[in-house]
């Protein structure tokens, strides 16, 4: 695969993504408009939709070793409320990885809503990582509409690092037997930030497998909402569906609302759900401090331990390590500068 970095000449001057992986094809979406097309012969095509947004087609049978990264940035050239639609289509039997990032390049109070339709054809495998990192006055709601055919596999990790008000609405329909859908999410909020996650996982046919693991760390007066529904249709026997939402509250004023729900119409299924919220563990902190590790560092280690199993689910090792670093610097409070400096995102 070609190693083309078709940067928009205007954007890298003020912004350089520090996530990219070796061999990544990178494309920018500026205020919802795609700046460059990418075509890899016989494998994939990234092109703009009519007015705004992008569409990615991974061709049937294509196996892509490298990641396609699409960076959606907003800047002061267009500060109106923005809504745009995107599609990701994975052809029959294809294998690919997509990284979607959101950023803000100026301090305007952006309000963005993006729809992302994700269609997996029979036997396709896709890894999607979403990283959200916007400034403290920016709101972004992302609506993911997932449809999976027979024997398709999707793993999607949503890492919400920063933003005033983030929303992730995931609606997944498992329409073909043998489909597997793994959704994982991590949200880190502080100050007055808010995040709402809503998952609607529908098993329509037998022998599908879904899992959800969403974790969050909340500090100050931040707020998180998690509502998750697993719905198993009458004919969807032998379904396996799991859902977990765990929250770590670092302050007394932080609030979390969790609403896990099951709606099961079949009688031969394995389903579970659970939600917890808790505080830092006093005994674990004491254990670390008794080894000479200071209170701040001990708290940080415990937070890293808490988020570990979500980050572990990012397959690409280079990307996983980079995101672990970003999460660590976020938890160390080093993202504070983002509230003032919009150029220096992560």
């Amino acid at each position, binding site marked *: 695969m070609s190693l083309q970095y078709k940067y928009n000449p205007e954007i890298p001057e003020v912004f350089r993504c520090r996530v990219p992986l070796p061999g990544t094809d990178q494309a920018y979406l500026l205020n919802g408009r795609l700046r460059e097309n990418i075509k890899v012969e016989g494998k994939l095509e990234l092109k703009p939709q009519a007015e705004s947004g992008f569409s990615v087609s991974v061709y049937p049978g294509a196996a892509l070793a490298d990641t396609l990264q699409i960076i959606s940035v907003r800047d002061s050239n267009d500060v109106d409320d923005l809504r745009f639609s995107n599609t990701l289509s994975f052809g029959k039997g294809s294998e690919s990885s997509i990284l979607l990032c959101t950023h803000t390049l100026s301090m305007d109070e952006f309000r963005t809503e993006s729809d992302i339709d994700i269609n997996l054809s029979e036997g396709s495998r896709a890894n999607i990582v979403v990283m959200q990192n916007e400034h403290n006055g920016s709101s972004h709601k992302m609506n993911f509409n997932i449809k999976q055919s027979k024997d398709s596999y999707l793993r999607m990790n949503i890492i919400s690092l920063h933003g005033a008000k983030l929303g992730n609405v995931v609606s997944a329909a498992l329409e073909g037997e043998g489909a597997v859908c793994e959704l994982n999410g991590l949200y880190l909020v502080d100050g007055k930030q808010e995040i709402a996650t809503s998952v609607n996982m529908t098993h329509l046919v037998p022998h599908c497998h879904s899992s959800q693991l969403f974790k969050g760390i909340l500090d100050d007066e931040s707020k998180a909402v998690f509502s998750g529904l697993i719905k198993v249709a009458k004919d969807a026997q032998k379904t396996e569906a799991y859902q977990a939402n765990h929250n770590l509250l670092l302050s007394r004023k932080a609030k979390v609302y969790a609403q896990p729900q099951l709606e099961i119409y079949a009688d031969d299924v394995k389903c579970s759900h659970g939600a917890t919220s808790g505080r830092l563990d006093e005994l*674990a902190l004491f254990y*670390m*401090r008794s080894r000479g*590790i200071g*209170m701040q*560092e001990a708290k940080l*280690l415990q937070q890293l331990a808490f988020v570990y199993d979500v980050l572990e689910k990012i397959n690409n090792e280079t990307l996983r390590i980079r995101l672990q670093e970003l999460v660590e610097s976020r938890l160390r409070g080093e993202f504070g500068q983002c509230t003032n400096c919009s150029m220096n995102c992560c």
Partner: protein
Amino acid sequence: MLEIKGLRASVEGKEILKGIDFSVKAGEVHAIMGPNGSGKSTLSAVLAGRDHFNVTAGEVRYQGVNLLELAPEERAHMGIFLGFQYPVEIPGVSNVNFMKTAINEKRKFENLPPLTAAEFLKMMREKMAVVEMDSSFSSRGVNVGFSGGEKKRNEIFQMAMLDPKLAILDETDSGLDVDALRIVASGVNKLKTPDNAFIVITHYQRLLDYIVPDIVHVLYDGRIIKTAGKELAMEVETRGYDWLINS
């Protein structure tokens, strides 16, 4: 090295330690025995600085300073080590990184530069050998998925790395089979020098076959009710605690 006078401590309003007095000199091994609920673990946690317990009276001096004023990490920097009865699991934090952080925090306190990667790995290898620990442990999360015996070995390994002056081992023998017990005990014996001291808390005399104490204290209902030489441990083993409690 350590002087405890009239130490009282409570948790959630309930008094657990009701006046403890004893002192430990460099080179000594003290054993603290006693039935369940007598306050043994509380005593070790108070000495290491767990703020879950309130010290209500008394004094603890360690190397001439008021120990009770120090944070747990400061006590650790000054050479106090607590081996936990139930070591805590820290997923996602490898043993290597955990120990590197701990060692370098201590070195910072001692005004020493951080160890180089090569120095640190050499030290890890040496100390892992002390407790016959497989090198694959170093990359695993701290205590995650470890068996009971592996966790205790990891405690002794951490102790070897931190090279404390005063090590308090809280029921390090609980849940250990004979082989693990031998490894843990020989680890302790290898680390013993005339300059350091150990307080070994145990239910059973068994551990004291391997780690021979100079002084044995029996703790009951928050007080030390008997102090004697190593023969006291034997006597407890054969006669139980009742004769001491009722005397």
